[in-house]
């Protein structure tokens, strides 16, 4: 960030509240402008103007306000919006949540600086996403197919293996791609253990040189988390639309991000919305998620896989709820399956891929894919009904047909969903699906052609 030295610095901090400072008599500052906040002992912190009212500016301080005093600390507007220096040199690097290297290697020499907020993609310029991505996971490829340019989140619960699944997808999706594949990890509020896990797994997968990691750990400043996904997505857009890469962005954990958003909202004394998350959280999340996509006339794509932890496994909680309303489907993990030892514990019934129809069928996966998927859904839903029934009427009250569906549900979970670390081709997935469907009667499976 360049600093214009002619600009005046202001020693007019009137109040400090949570992560915010209020600066008086500030003239010429603009909304979103970055500032340098200098403490009495010379420590420099990064701030951003959130609101302007007359000559009062509200500035959020990324590293927190602890130690800032209203007399001796100063604020210096830089005249710049929040920007990140981008370059292909970023590959293989590990940076903090604000885009500064933390891997001990020298700083990056950027090709250009880009505004991290980006610009909204013109809906008329979007290219329809229709390129099938084989993740090697049956529950995804067969039933909730992922396509390039899609945003497909993983809804997880505390202790469920969402990160393992995300990494397995990254690892396996890589295989079918050529050299133009890139992974960007935006980690917000993760534990250092998770940080190690990500780096180790990516290294083992041999994907590290294709990866850029922005890592904000639990102990790092919370406000920085609001910047991390924006930086990650700005780099993704740069690689995809300037250099033609197919970029997979994994953002984890969106729950931490939303909590930071709530923290700022409450410090600004805004009227809180549901569960005290700000009323504009939908719009805010949309400005992140909607950055996935493809553009007409450009080779690359940005595919987004946010991971979030549903508080108390509650899918109606505002974080998963608003996410589900923006993203093109969701992969939901189930505690019940996890307890049964099934990996990946994908709860297929509430899962969805809205763009599946665009990525499957003849020439993409195979003819009849939709039929197989619909039949598996129908039969499994019926099997689950029977399973509930058993708890009330016992196995004796079941008809033969019901028993068949019950057995189908068990087999389906064990074999189709619970594939473990295996990397299945789409043909293997669909053949397995057909094989399993044989156990339910033809006449009943009306969806079968």
């Amino acid at each position, binding site marked *: 960030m360049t600093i214009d030295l002619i600009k005046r610095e202001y020693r007019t901090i009137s109040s400090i509240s949570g992560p915010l400072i209020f600066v008086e008599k500030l003239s010429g*500052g603009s*909304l979103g402008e970055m500032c340098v906040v200098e403490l009495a002992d010379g420590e420099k912190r990064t701030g951003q103007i959130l609101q302007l009212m007359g000559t009062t500016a509200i500035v959020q301080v990324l590293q927190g306000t602890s130690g800032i005093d209203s007399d001796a600390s100063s604020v210096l507007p830089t005249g710049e919006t929040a920007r990140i220096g981008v370059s292909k040199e970023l590959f293989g690097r590990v940076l903090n949540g604000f885009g500064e290297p933390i891997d001990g290697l020298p700083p990056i020499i950027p090709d250009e600086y880009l505004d991290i907020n980006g610009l909204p993609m013109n809906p008329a310029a979007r290219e329809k996403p229709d390129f099938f991505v084989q993740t090697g996971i049956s529950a995804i490829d067969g039933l909730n197919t992922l396509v390039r340019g899609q945003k497909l989140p993983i809804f997880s619960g505390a202790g469920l293996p969402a990160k393992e699944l995300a990494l397995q997808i990254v690892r396996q999706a890589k295989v079918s791609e050529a050299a133009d594949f890139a992974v960007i990890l935006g980690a917000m509020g993760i534990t250092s253990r998770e940080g190690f896990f990500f780096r180790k797994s990516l290294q083992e997968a041999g994907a590290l040189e294709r990866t850029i990691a922005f890592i904000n750990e639990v102990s790092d400043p919370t406000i920085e988390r609001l910047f991390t996904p924006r930086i990650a997505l700005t780099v993704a857009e740069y690689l995809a639309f300037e250099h033609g890469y197919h970029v997979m962005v994994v953002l984890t954990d969106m729950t931490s991000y939303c909590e930071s958003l709530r923290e700022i909202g409450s410090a600004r004394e805004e009227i809180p919305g549901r569960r005290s998350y700000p009323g504009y959280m*939908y719009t805010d999340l949309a400005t992140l998620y*909607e950055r996935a996509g493809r553009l007409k006339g450009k080779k690359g794509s940005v595919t987004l896989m946010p991971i979030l932890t549903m508080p108390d496994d509650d899918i*109606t909680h*505002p974080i998963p709820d608003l996410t589900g309303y923006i993203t093109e489907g969701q992969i939901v993990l189930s505690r019940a399956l996890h307890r049964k030892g099934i990996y990946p514990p994908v709860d297929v019934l*509430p899962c969805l891929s809205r763009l599946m129809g665009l990525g499957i069928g003849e020439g993409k996966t195979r003819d009849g894919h939709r039929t197989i998927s619909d039949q598996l859904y129908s039969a499994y839903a019926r099997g689950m009904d029977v399973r509930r029934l058993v708890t009330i009427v016992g196995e004796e*009250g079941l008809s033969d047909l019901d028993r068949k569906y019950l057995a189908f549900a068990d087999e389906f979970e064990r074999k189709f969903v619970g594939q473990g670390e295996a990397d299945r081709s789409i043909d293997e997935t669909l053949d397995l699906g057909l094989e399993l469907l044989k156990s339910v009667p033809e006449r009943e499976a009306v969806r079968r052609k």
Partner: protein
Amino acid sequence: MKETRGKIYGVAGPTVLVKGMAGPVMNTVCLVGKQGLLGEIIRIKGELVTLQVYEDTSGISVGEEVISYGIPLSVTLGPGLLTGIFDGIQRPLEKIRQAAGGFITRGIKFEALDIDRLWEFTPLKKKGDFVEPGDIIGTVQETERIVHKIMVPPGQSGTITEIKTGKVSGAEYVCMLEKGKFIGLFQEWPVRKPRPFAAKLPPSTPFITGQRVFDTLLPVAEGGTAIVPGGFGTGKTVVEQSIAKFSRSDIVVYVGCGERGNEMSEILSDFPALKDPTSGLPLSLRTVIVVNTSNMPVAAREASIFTGITIAEYFRDMGYSVAMLADSISRWAEALREISSRLEEMPGEEGFPPYLATQLGIFYERSGKVRCLGTDNRTGSVTVISAVSPPGGDFSEPVTQASLRFAGSLWALDPDLAYRRHFPAVNWLASFSLYQAELNDWFVSEVAEDMVKLRGRLYSLLRRQTELRDIIQIIGVEALQEADRLTLEVANLATEAFLKQSAFSEVDAFNTYEKQYGILKSIFTFMESAEAALKRGVYIETILENPIRGRITRMKEFPNEGFSKKAEEMMRDIENEFTMLEEK
């Protein structure tokens, strides 16, 4: 128009405070700051004027200038709307793409309609004719599919002193009235002001969607309103899109309000390729798209549904039947909430402003079947179908509840049905249509004499299905009486063969009433024959094992053409099969 200037005093999110404006007027537009961003005055409090800005406000500084010309937020109406794609404040997105590439840069401006494009104007009036508001002075073949009627704008009348013929552009006049008044191809209209009409008419004809569950069970009238609430993944967008594709309306205005960009790209690439069922011409030729995706500025999202409904009303005024699809009205309400909270207004329920219901009512009431202005007594209609996205799928929230008060039909989507891939995932028992009674005459005269009766029977059958399913939960299916078991199986057949419909199947996506009636009638023929056989002493297993049931389920795979013949054959086959069944 008077021009007035002021200076920016504060910026918070999408709102900007201005000081020093002389005589600001509510709801007029302003140009804000160095970049000339478009804003609208939404509050005047002493010398402080609050604007909502239709573009991202970052980078705006205190002290920059604001200019108001005293004009309300308006849209341009005229040839060139069809096949167009506009943002919430009617900026042409295709032009922006050509100029700026993949992303929408701030402060970019284009006229909504191409003012230089020449149109072939055919006059219908001549010199010396006296014309009133709404009179059609001539036509332009806007697309292969739609004739655009050039009307005398509201508030103008007089004797024609000159009328052109042949190639005319939007920049010129096509007709001159006495005292030097002009009529051009284009007219401006403020989006927040409903366009006038001669009289509202009661609903009497159904709005044909081609979807069995809607048309037969839960019809919406032409000029009516339907709301489609549902949690995420229940298929709201697919319902909206299917209606945009297959409904028998002349014009479709599709408003993507705060929704996904990729879905819009799907519409944009599919519509030019898909054929409209009535004319066989590409769907795009009858469609106007207004899109303000969730990541585009929130104030423009608020404006988008008003932009959309104004365009819909304009085509209604020409005498067309217009479908206005809003996906989703909840995103509009959230935009309203966001701006209201920036104004620090006292919040109502769930933080929504107390005037939410009033505003929603104003929007929904702009639907309707009307006798248009003009001396030829033509009628036109705007049917509004809006998706509602209740948080957590909970319908008790304010937007769903307020919408319910104004909607004539409720199509409630159910996640449980969606999970089992039953689409459209309409919960038939939780939904309603208030138009049934008004449309009964039409059904009897235009579809079949027993259509209304069959619908009643279908309702009772489905209600019974729910009861029986509850009983099974306790005693198991084996303990049901045979007659009940049969009723349940017929109800399941109706669910499968009639209620479930694939939006992706070429033959099943749109059903004529002839086909809907044919399938329904076959199901009840099966029910009657099966009940008779059961009484006669045939085993229930024998009845249920008969393959005829599967054939009824597959009836939807027959095309619309000549369906009644196919249905008659089917009913004959059903009766034959059952008379042949052997008794115990």
